[in-house]
């Protein structure tokens, strides 16, 4: 008897192997690549409303988004907008970046986004590619349409050049590498594709917000009901226009930064910057800490996290486990102010990069813009002049070179003697 059972188990085990192999080979049937729905944001919005979207409403949204933006294999940009999408992205660039990885006879590549970006940033640009959970910080989720390192003020989109700088330089102290070796046209294609994913993602979020107005039995869109269709088209047009307008505006919104004065004594400027750093007007010390190692305020979260995890909102706190366990989302991490002694500057190491971080703040994070005043304002007017900001830049640049910033090297007596 024992043998019989054992035999059976072996047969079953073999069969299981065979089936598993079969399953792997066929990939459960080839389905075309699809964008993932922003179910987390949907759940948050409806939880705050003590309800939930209906399955057919979510299907309406998917169909609407496919109508507007196509699929990962066949990108599209809608004409249902007052700002032509072609002002923002070039559809030929999208076609170069989209789709599976391949190349034609002349070696022209296809599927650049999936080749270079998707494993971290995800097919949908949701920052949840297969590698994402192993990284700290997590890869950026583009769908909020918010970007940190840019030359434009708070709330504005980055310029094309801002995004190109990130691709060229990478982001130090994160997993984001440099793509400097790619040809210019491929970089442009990737940038347009990232914009496209951001536009698609932000449109999805805006439509989810609009959908909170729907009753449970109401659909977002209906092909049978002409009046309803036109009403939806109106809402969608407003939404897409709003999103595209911001991208179109960005190119002319760069903050003008005066050059660093040439004639300054560096030591003197560093001393002034230090005073401002710890002073009540700039108040950098509040978050970056007495030691400037980023230990002033370590309990906050960035805006991407606060979207679904707000420790101050009791309704949302209850959802944390749902997101992590059932949605397989990355567990929330606190946003830690930069350790200014490390010498790694995520948004770029040029003085103008540091100036912009202080001058404009950093979108999506607690980092605020400096409080400004005109250069000729009376001394008792509270605020920083652009000269003041340059002093702070000089001080911040000096921090990694202070002796306490240097890594602790092993003491001589602790070194193992080589026999």
């Amino acid at each position: 008897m024992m043998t019989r059972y054992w035999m059976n188990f072996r047969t079953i085990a073999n069969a299981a192997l065979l089936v598993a192999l079969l399953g792997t080979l066929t990939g459960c049937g080839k389905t075309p690549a699809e964008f993932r729905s922003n179910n987390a944001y949907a759940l948050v919005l409806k939880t705050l409303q003590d309800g939930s979207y209906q399955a057919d409403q979510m299907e309406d949204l998917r169909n609407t988004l496919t109508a507007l933006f196509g699929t990962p294999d066949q990108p599209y940009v809608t004409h249902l907008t007052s700002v032509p999408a072609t002002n923002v992205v070039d559809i030929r660039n999208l076609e170069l970046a989209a789709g599976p990885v391949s190349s034609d006879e002349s070696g022209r590549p296809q599927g650049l986004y999936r080749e270079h970006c998707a494993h971290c940033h995800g097919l949908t640009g949701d920052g949840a590619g297969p590698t994402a959970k192993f990284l700290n910080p997590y890869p950026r989720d583009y769908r909020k349409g918010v970007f940190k390192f840019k030359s434009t003020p708070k709330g504005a989109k980055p310029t094309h050049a801002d995004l190109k700088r990130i691709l060229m330089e990478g982001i130090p102290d994160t997993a984001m590498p440099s793509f400097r070796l790619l040809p210019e046209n491929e970089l442009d294609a990737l940038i347009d594709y990232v914009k496209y994913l951001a536009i698609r993602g932000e449109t999805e979020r805006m439509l989810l917000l609009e959908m909170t107005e729907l009753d449970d039995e109401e659909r977002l869109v209906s092909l049978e009901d002409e009046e309803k269709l036109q009403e939806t088209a109106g809402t969608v047009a407003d939404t897409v226009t709003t999103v595209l307008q911001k991208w179109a505006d960005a190119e002319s919104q760069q903050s003008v930064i005066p050059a660093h004065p040439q004639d300054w004594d560096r030591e003197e400027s560093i001393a002034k910057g230090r005073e401002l750093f710890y002073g009540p007007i700039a108040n950098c010390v509040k978050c970056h800490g007495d030691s400037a190692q980023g230990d002033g305020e370590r309990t906050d979260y960035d805006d991407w996290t606060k979207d679904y995890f707000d420790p101050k909102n009791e309704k949302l706190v209850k959802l944390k486990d749902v997101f992590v366990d059932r949605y397989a989302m990355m567990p929330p991490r606190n946003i830690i102010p930069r350790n200014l002694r490390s010498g790694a500057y995520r948004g770029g190491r040029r003085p103008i990069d540091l100036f912009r971080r202080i001058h404009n703040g950093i979108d999506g994070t607690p980092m605020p813009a400096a409080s400004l005043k005109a250069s000729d304002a009376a001394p008792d007017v509270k605020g920083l002049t652009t000269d003041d900001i340059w002093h702070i830049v000089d001080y911040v640049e000096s921090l990694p070179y202070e002796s306490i910033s240097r890594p602790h090297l092993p003491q001589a007596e602790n070194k193992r003697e080589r026999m």
Partner: protein
Amino acid sequence: MKVPRAIVGFGLLSVLVLSLGCAESNPIPTAAGNEEVAQELRDRFDEAGARLAVSGGGSGAASGTRTGWGTIKGIFRTSGSIDRKALTVDKDLSVCAPGGKQILSEAVVTGPNGELANVLCFLTTKIPADWEHPDYAAVKEGNVEFDQKNCVFLTHVFACRSTQTVILKNSDSASHNTNIAPDRGASQMNAIIPQGASAEYLPGGESPSPFPVTCNIHPWMKAYMITRDNPYFAVSGDDGTFEIKNVPTGVPLSFRVWQETAGYLDRVTVNGQETNWKKGYFDITLEPDQVVTLEVDVEKSALSP
């Protein structure tokens, strides 16, 4: 008759493995987008987009002829006062908690008899310019103050017009940052406001719903703001009362009512009658010189998170 167990096992396992391997892991069911529907939608949307390019678009503004002006006023109440939780205050104690003073949550603020403060009521109907009473012209632009003292925003629910300039003041002897984060319509801002200083916020547009204003330096600080194109809005005071004057009459209007914890108030009792303000909306058409009084009772259960 006898089916070998191995085959049964094989069958069962196939089903198991296949169903495991291919199961949709999203808890919200998402039917795979229907290609044909999407294609037809694309064509219809693009047609609508082509018309948009010709007409320049239009908004669904209200219709009708205004006959005069009226008033909407009233009170928001719940059954008895609700205790307010003390917030964790762990920074700048000499400024934020002088003499060990506690800062209480403002998520629900009630008077001794359940009078409900900080309830926002605002007109959602898009109105033409001549539905705006001339008295409001004086406050269409100009400055409105939004202040903070002892690490508390002095106006917890702040409503203003999208054309006004908000002067963000800091009356504390500590630095704050004021982080204004609308999800739609109005512009975003996050700036340091040094002690005793102020900054300007230009809303730049209408926000369809209230949005949070926070200070990241003092994480317990939170207020809500809404910016509206029209002047018809009010926030209930400590005594629970509100009043909106010079409301256009003879035309159908839609208002919306919001409270921080409850969200848009739907199940309410208005002048003794159980009412469902679906998603917080109520419709009303006033007679000239009419004063409508709404006594709105809110269940205590709606005010707990």
